[in-house]
């Protein structure tokens, strides 16, 4: 069994490139058949909001790639319930990603604990 990696998105998009850079790591790790868990917590849930138009800022829109995560074999994708509540978001406002699940903070803590590597940026 390959080592597993948990990628934690905790920042909103476009103020920094953190989301895009983590996404690139996730896709590469998937190509190496590492089991990957993608987790969206805190302001990182805004990475998944529908209707992003960063083109207006001449910044590349990476959000469509999140929808392709299952195509890359990344099927463990969790968004934190508490963050959704905090920012008054519901799941229908988020990108339609096959297998996207809401998780409690307890659930996310367990995912972090189980992984061989955990990355934030």
């Amino acid at each position: 069994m390959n080592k597993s990696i948990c990628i934690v998105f905790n920042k909103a998009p476009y103020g920094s490139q953190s989301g895009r850079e983590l996404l690139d790591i996730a896709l590469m790790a998937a190509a190496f058949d590492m089991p990957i868990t993608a987790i969206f917590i805190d302001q990182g849930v805004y990475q998944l909001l529908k209707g992003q138009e960063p083109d207006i800022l001449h910044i590349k829109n990476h959000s469509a790639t999140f929808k392709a995560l299952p195509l890359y074999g990344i099927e463990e994708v969790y968004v934190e319930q508490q963050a959704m509540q905090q920012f008054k978001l519901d799941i229908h406002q988020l990108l339609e990603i096959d297998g996207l699940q809401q998780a409690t903070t307890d659930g996310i803590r367990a995912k972090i604990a189980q992984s061989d590597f955990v990355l934030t940026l």
Partner: protein
Amino acid sequence: MATFSLLVTANPYSSQGQFSAIQFAKTLLEQGHQLMRVFFYADGVLVASRLHAPPADEINLTKAWAKLAIEKDIELVACVTAANKRGIVNAAEAERNALTGDNLDPAFAISGLGQLTEAMLESDRLITFG
């Protein structure tokens, strides 16, 4: 003894992360552990330029990494996408992009993110300095 790799995303000179990473690398080597690879990503790639000219009484981070790499045979790898867009290029990339010069320090290599994944798979620990 354990095998480490480091992921360095800190902007050199703007923040402490590169200093911390060098100190951590030196320490683990002094303790007899292995350092397989240092992977530079995001703003961390900026340290791979050979054109930094800090004041004489300040550390040159590029030279500090290079010294470590040469003395201890450690791979210093900068992510190609992150590096090229930030103006860090080797001769081949300079030619491909019709740029007037290259600036990659010879102690560093430019390669893809696969080198980070490989470092994770082959090291006991990956420590990030951002």
